[in-house]
Structures are given as structure tokens and as C-alpha cells.
């Protein structure tokens, strides 16, 4: 009986095991091995030990790419989460048209990133774009060149990223807020807590499991920003918007340096892993489950 159940279990698992081995386990292990080689996809594989890793740490562009990625994550994630939380709190007050707002704010999430980035690159265009036309209408004279300037290109990418991912976090927050029972808040109100106190002492702690999930997903996601950069700036100008995944793509599929690209991918994996593990460790301090 128990043996029959065991056999059945492995039969049920067989399709997923085959695909998981082929397209996840084998690739992860081979990426790790490739990262110690010099290989252009066509010639023989040449083992170079830690050469690629040493090379990356001395690569000025790679260091700049690390900085850019950090800048992107540190700026986009907090702003995106703050706006999403504000929107969710506002919608949770029971304003009219809640469904309409929810759909509209979620619309960019289900839009192809490539299409969205294309439209935004017209909007940001410094010659004919709507955004600069609007800015000059309100009297800004020193118009930013956006994707043409090393200073403003990254903020442009960040703005589009926030616009696109806002709805996802908002819907999750909204679901979390709707789980907080009105009685809890009513009780706090009776005890004389102000709206501000109630937010910090009741709403936010009860929302912390959702916040934890959103934070992890957003950080992992923004470390992997690629399509926005690919369509809007092609990493330019002067690598001002070159991010880790774009750099991996460049090295692997434009310069055919598979070893170098895999080493960069391993470093990215390590960074994301450290961030995720650190958040798991820190969650005891601020995440309250039930």
C-alpha cells in the first residue's frame, strides 16, 4: 500500500522532474562551470580558473554596472513600494470607483514591457517628446535631455519601472489590507489612537507579511531589470544605464564571451541570494505573522 503510494508519487512527479533537471538544474550547474572558462560558443572550451572573476573585479565597466544596478534598486524599490502602499490605503477607504482605479493602476503590469518602454521613449524624447513639451509649458527652461544625458537617463528608466510595477504591489497591499479586520481598527480608534498612530501601530505591523513578500519580489525583480534598458537606452549614454543583466546579455550574446557573462551571472545570483537571505534573517525583527 505504502509502496504503491510511493510509486504513484514518483509517476506524478516524473514530468516536472525531467523538465526541472533539464532546464534548471543542468543549466545552473553548467553556468557555474562555464564561468571558469573562456568560450565563444564556437571554439574549444578553455579553462581559466578564477580568471573571469578576477577580470570582472578589475573591469571598470562592470564596477560601473554594479553601481548603476544598485542605484536602480535603491531608488526604484522604495519609491514604488511607498506609492503602491499610499494608493492601496487610499483605495481601501472605500472611495467610489475602486474597481475602476484598480484596473487602471494594474493595466501597465499586464502590458508588454517592450511596448511600454517604446512609448515612454517617445514621451521622454528630448526633441519631440510630450514630457519636455509639458515641462517647458510650466516654465522649465533647462530641459533635461533624458535618455541622451548621463545624468537623466537612469531616472527616466526608473520612472518607467515604477509606472509599470506599481499596480502589482498595490494589488497585493490591497489584498493584505482587506484581511485586516475593521474591528481591530475600531478598537484602536475607541482607545483614542489617531489615524497616524493607527497606521504605524496597527495597519503596518498587520501588513508586514505582505510587505515582506512585496519587498523580496521587488528587489529580486529590479536586480534583473533588462527589457526597459534594452528598448529605451541600449545601456547608453556612455554606459550610464548599463545594468547587470544587460551587461550579461552584451557579453554573452553580442561579444560571445560566454565565460565572462556566466561569471557575471554568478555574481548577480550571489548578490540576489545574499539580499534574500538577509531579508529572511531580518524578518523576525519586523514581520508579524498572525
Amino acid at each position, binding site marked *: 500500500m505504502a509502496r504503491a503510494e*510511493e510509486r504513484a508519487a514518483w509517476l506524478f512527479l516524473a514530468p516536472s522532474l525531467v523538465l526541472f533537471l533539464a532546464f534548471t538544474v543542468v*543549466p545552473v550547474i*553548467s553556468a557555474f562551470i562555464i564561468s571558469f572558462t573562456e568560450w565563444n560558443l564556437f571554439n574549444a572550451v578553455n579553462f581559466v580558473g578564477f580568471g573571469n572573476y578576477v577580470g570582472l573585479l578589475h573591469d571598470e565597466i562592470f564596477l560601473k554596472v554594479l553601481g548603476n544596478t544598485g542605484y536602480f534598486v535603491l531608488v526604484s524599490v522604495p519609491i514604488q513600494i511607498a506609492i503602491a502602499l499610499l494608493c492601496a490605503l487610499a483605495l481601501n477607504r472605500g472611495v467610489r470607483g475602486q474597481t475602476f482605479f484598480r484596473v487602471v493602476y494594474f493595466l501597465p503590469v499586464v502590458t*508588454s514591457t517592450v511596448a511600454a518602454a517604446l512609448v515612454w521613449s517617445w514621451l521622454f524624447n528630448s526633441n519631440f517628446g510630450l514630457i519636455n513639451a509639458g515641462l517647458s509649458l510650466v516654465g522649465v527652461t533647462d530641459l533635461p535631455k533624458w535618455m541622451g544625458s548621463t545624468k537623466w537617463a537612469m531616472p527616466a528608466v526608473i520612472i518607467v519601472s515604477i509606472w509599470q510595477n506599481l499596480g502589482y504591489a498595490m494589488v497585493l497591499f490591497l489584498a493584505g489590507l482587506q484581511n485586516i479586520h475593521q474591528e481591530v481598527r475600531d478598537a484602536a480608534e475607541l482607545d483614542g489612537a489617531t489615524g497616524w498612530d493607527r497606521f504605524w501601530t496597527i495597519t503596518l505591523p498587520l501588513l508586514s507579511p505582505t510587505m515582506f513578500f512585496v519587498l523580496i519580489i521587488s528587489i529580486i525583480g529590479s536586480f534583473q531589470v533588462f527589457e526597459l534598458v534594452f528598448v529605451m537606452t541600449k545601456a547608453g549614454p556612455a554606459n550610464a544605464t548599463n545594468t547587470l543583466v544587460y551587461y550579461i546579455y552584451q557579453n554573452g550574446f553580442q561579444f560571445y564571451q*560566454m565565460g565572462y557573462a556566466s561569471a557575471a551571472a554568478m555574481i*548577480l545570483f550571489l548578490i540576489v541570494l545574499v539580499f534574500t537571505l538577509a531579508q529572511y534573517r531580518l524578518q523576525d525583527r519586523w514581520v508579524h505573522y498572525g
Partner: protein
Amino acid sequence: MDKTLGDWVVFVLLLAGALLMCGPFAWMISTSFKPGPEVFLYPPTPFTAEPQYENYVRIFSAIPFGRAIANSLIVSASVTILQLIICSLAAYAFACLRFRGREILFLIYLSALMVPSQVTLIPNFILVRTLGWIDTYQGLILPFAFSSFGTFLLRQYLKSIPQELMEAARMDGANHFQIYSTIVLPLAKPALGALAIFTFVAQWTISSGRSSPRPSPKCRSRPWRSAPSRDSTIPIGRCS
């Protein structure tokens, strides 16, 4: 009084936000009707005086747009259907069956959620090339036919189905496959529906992480079409 005033302020702010969220979509539609040179006019015109309806006809002749949409549909639908089957089978094993190594295997599946797809992008590309699957549908479909996310989602749901239902079916002599297909799957419809939507949307909008980074026109799916790529063989950027 104070409360309703606050509500109105919130409503107006949300409306302004909604306009910001919708703006780019409106601009996309407005631009799609403009004649070529007007796109680059400064100051920009909100509506064109001479709408070019034939832009929509032209994309089907200028680039194989119909083919691209068909490819996207075929790939997204196949991936979605396969994931629903494969993930629900695995989820049934994890949620409803006892076997040695269950917890460890589940943890290994879960840890795959943390691996960025870019880590496996290059080896996957090599694997798909070795199999001779570049520019084929199976090369675009099979690497995405299983997901840890889907298995996790369905397992959580299946665990909430009362054990007695399955035991009763076993008493009546049903085997595991019959229980899975006639009891568990119908009960899991909400979770399967959610997974179907997530998967289809993700597949439809994806363009990076694809096994072949520069697909040939035959198998290039829709998002690749709209990318204004310099080294693309088709001058997409000039079609607007």
C-alpha cells in the same frame, strides 16, 4: 464633513494618478494614427489632423505581424496548458501523497524561485542549440513548461482540500490518477484559473530569457517585433 472632504481629496488624487497611468496608452493610440513626420513634430500634437488608418493595415504587410501574433499565441497557450498539467501533477504528489524525500525535493523546487532566469539563460541557449531546437516551437515552449511558482501555488491550494474526500474515493476503489482527475482538479479550479492567467500574461509579454535571443523571423514572437532594434533585419523603427 471633514471625512467627506478628505474622501474627495483622495478621489481627486487617485484620478490624477489614473491619468498618469493611462497617459502612455492614450499616447500610443494617438501616435499610431499619425503620419510618419508628425511623430517627430515639436511641440507634439495630441491628435493628428489626418489620421492614417492604413498604418494598421500596413504592419501586416511591412512585417509578418500576423505571423508574430500567431507565434505568441501558440507559444503562450502551449506553455500555459503544459504548466497547468505538469505543475498540478507535481502539486498533487507534494500535497496529497506520502513518499520519501518529499520535503527535501519540495525545498529544492522552491529554491529554484530564487535563481534569476539570467543565470540559466546562457546554458539554456546552449542546451536548446545542442538539441537543434533553435527557431522551433519546442525550443520556445518546453523550457518554460514547468514552474516552481506554479507548483508552489497549486500545492498550497491542494493542501486545503479535505483529506476525507480523497479517502472516501479510495474506499470506493479509485486509483490516484482517478482521484487527481475527478476530485482534485475540479476542486482546484480557482487556483488553476489564477495560475493560467499569471502564466499566460507572463508568457505573452516576455521577450527576454527566451532560449533563442535572436529568433529568426519565423519564430520571433510579438514583443520582439516592437523592439526598435538596430541590428534587426527588419526596419521596424520606421513603421510608426
